[in-house]
């Protein structure tokens, strides 16, 4: 959310607290050894090159750095179009594993990504390294089950990436992954990313779905809270939809692959090529919608029904349940990148036309 104001000065909203920042005049800071901000000043005679290099790892505060609660944003955050993506779902729905798997795949430097014309780099190197070390590597490399996301954890983005598309347009991506207990609270003044989120990834826990239709399932409380918060935002002109892109992902899909053929078929098509082929999204969305309807999980479909743009997906971050805190040889990520790419297409990072029919070199059609 960047925009010119006051005669061209750039005003940016902090993605964490939604505070307005006079970006051009915000002084640069660095984190000191005790993780406290230290003002970064240009030394007399310092070359432009040296100064620019320092600024690459600098931050701009969203307020007075002496005040607690002020956030430090990457120095070049507003140089690119900000895109904020939040994970929504109840506790142990699979949000953390899914996001770690998504970002692991996104940052894997897989050649298929270059087919989309995307290049990915850390926006906040410090945050990204931490995220990779604490979550992505333990999951994808060491195949370890990730710990619970604690409900008392700080509300801030867990990773920040700079992503540049084929047109050379760059975006500042920030990801939020909070504990489900927290997302289910009707009132939590610290959770403000709903106000700015460009996209929400609604994570459906298949284990909590009703076993059969009309079982009286009320859905996921966190979905309701998120949708309720979005009420406060202006709706897209001429529409009654909520102004956010929604990817509804049935996570842990491996757990239901043997109970539903459609799920099994989609998971079987989890190769790299298919994962970046967005033309199948519409079909997959229809199938997921139908699956949830069959299960009587209409309450979980509200995001798809109410948000301005939406897609639906099956995915599995681990391809099987954890045993003893780890994952066995069958461990792999299934279709985790696709919901993220769909989100990119819905938020303008990728062209929305990618949802259209495949070009000559596109992959197979939807499974049937």
């Amino acid at each position, binding site marked *: 959310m960047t925009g010119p104001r006051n005669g061209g000065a750039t005003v940016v909203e902090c993605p964490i607290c939604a505070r307005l920042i006079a970006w051009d005049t915000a002084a640069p800071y660095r984190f000191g050894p005790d993780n406290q901000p230290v003002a970064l000043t240009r030394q007399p005679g310092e070359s432009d090159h040296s100064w620019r290099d320092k600024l690459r790892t600098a931050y701009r505060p969203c307020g007075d750095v002496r005040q*607690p609660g002020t*956030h430090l944003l990457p120095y070049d955050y507003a140089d690119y179009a900000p895109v904020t993506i939040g994970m929504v779902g109840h*506790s*142990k729905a699979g949000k953390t594993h899914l996001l770690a798997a998504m970002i692991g795949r996104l940052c894997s430097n897989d050649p298929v990504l270059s087919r989309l014309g995307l290049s990915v780099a850390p926006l906040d190197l410090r945050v990204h390294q931490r995220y990779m070390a604490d979550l992505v590597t333990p999951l994808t490399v060491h195949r370890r089950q990730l710990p619970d996301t604690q409900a008392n954890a700080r509300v801030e983005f867990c990773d920040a990436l700079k992503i540049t598309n084929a047109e050379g347009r760059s975006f500042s991506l920030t990801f939020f992954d909070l504990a489900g207990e927290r997302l289910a609270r009707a009132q939590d003044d610290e959770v403000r990313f709903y106000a700015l989120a460009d996209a929400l990834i609604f994570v459906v826990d298949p284990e909590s779905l009703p076993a059969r239709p009309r079982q009286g399932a009320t859905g996921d409380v966190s979905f309701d809270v998120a949708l309720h918060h979005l009420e406060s935002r202006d709706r897209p002109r001429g529409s009654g939809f909520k102004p956010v892109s929604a990817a509804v992902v049935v996570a842990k899909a491996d757990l239901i692959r043997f109970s539903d053929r459609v799920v099994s078929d989609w998971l079987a098509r989890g190769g790299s090529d298919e994962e970046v082929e967005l033309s199948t999204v519409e079909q997959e969305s229809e199938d997921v919608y139908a699956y949830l309807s069959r299960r009587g999980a209409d309450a979980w479909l509200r995001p798809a029904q109410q948000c301005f743009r939406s897609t639906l997906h099956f995915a599995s971050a681990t391809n099987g349940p954890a045993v003893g*805190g780890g994952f066995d040889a069958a461990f792999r990520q299934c279709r985790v990148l696709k919901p993220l790419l769909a989100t990119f297409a819905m938020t303008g990072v990728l062209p929305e036309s990618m949802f259209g029919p495949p070009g000559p070199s596109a992959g197979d059609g939807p499974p049937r």
Partner: protein
Amino acid sequence: MNEGLHQIRYRWTERSLLGERGMGPVESSLPQAHIEAWDALLRDHVWATGPEPAFTYLWSGEAGALIRKVTTAGGGRPGSSAHVLVGGRFLSPKVAIGLTTWTGWDAPELTEVPWSRLAPAARQGIRDVRRRSRALAPDRLAVLVAHLLSASGEPFSVLAEADPLAVVMAFTDLVGRPAGFATDEADDNGTSMPEAVFLKEAPFSTTIAARRRLMAQVSPADAELHTFADALVRAYRMQGRDGVARVRLATPPGDAAEAHAWARRAQFRPGVLADLTRLHLLGTDILRELAADPGPVTAAAITAPAADLAYALGQAVPEPLSAGLVTAALRRAVPPDGDHTLLEALAKHAPIGPGLLAPYLPVDLDRLAYVTGLLLSREDRLSVLTGAVAALSAQDLISWIGERATDDPDAAWAGFHQMLDRVPGLARPDLDALVRSQLLAVYLRAVLGSPPDVARAAAMLLAAFPEGTHDLGTLTPLIDHGDPAVLHAVETVVADPAVRDAVLRRIRFSFYQAQRLPPPAPPQPAGGDAPGGSRWPLGRRRRSANDRTAT
């Protein structure tokens, strides 16, 4: 104290007692209606960071809550499990520290626990943790306390401390903070975090910390508070809570300015606690420095509890300091309502110079007699009391001497000295009152004991009588009294023949009286009856042996 504490257990669940999914209350001894209110306070504090138990203590405003939490794996996703004791006004921070060693944690069934069952565990736990607190590295603890004082009134975090509970106990004993604590957290963010949060490392974040972070590795910028903290810690290490009890505030300082004011008030000089009971424990060098400027010690002695000052008076400290203590103690002990404990302690410093007493005079004569009896040498006391009774009238002076003659002869003697000084100028009525009193005969005997001494003293007094008063008109009451020592004195001093003749007559009278003889009748004129004549009372003659044999 008949209240009990309730228990709540938290862990991840599909459906908690509140009907929610996630980490929530799964078991409790509380009525259902109370769980929701407690959960609002507890839910952000039940997350653990490691397998070793961590403790969080919170105060709701009316009751306390102590949370014990551990991480759980159990073959599943790493999560947290917490066991909470809630309720009870008596669940103070210190009691909470003590209960961290309670053996009832993780009991399979949760019931209300009566305080009577918890109290012994709390007391033992407090002792155990305090022992660890006193064993903390003093330099490191002093740095933390200095940081804490600088952050007075603010919530704070402590980084990388191996024994957070021991540090909390030390903070509580020394400064009276914190009101709430968490011994092991991953982050110190959040408005509901307790006043003190212990972190293994600075949390990784893009958000400016909401609280001061105390690190033992960072030297305090405030030298004055560091020095004070160092003195507090060393006293605590040596004597536990007693070591700092005299300087502790009733309520912790509200900001850094109050902390500085406290530091100045609580030290004789930088690094030396203003505690009279610890003076004798100080090193020679420090004592020498204090002795060079004893003012602060004396000032403290004026306001210190009497028992502390009395204790200090009983210890060996260098002379200038000792004199300051004595001076302050005199000021508090000499007045009629003065402290008896101090007076007794001062007596151990007796005899003191009379000049030390002078500033606290005049004072009630009875009190003065008592005080001087304890504190002054006989000579000094005689001098002080002699001067003090100068204001009394002659008759009051005689009474005063009489009242003390038996129980406090030295004071009475001082009164006698005053009388000696005053006699030459006594007016007639006072002189008459004097000779009619029992001063010379009875009181002097009580004071001096031996007749020769009484005779000498009486002679001194008589010799001082105004001129022209050594006559029968003045001295007859004395002579009639018949005390040998007084008669001796009169005969020694007075030249008047009539007086001397009266003395001799009184002596003869006394002599006969001692033999049960009546006063001899004056001789009859010539021709009268001879002794043994018909007027001899025959019936009263003593019978002889011959008389008995005749019968």
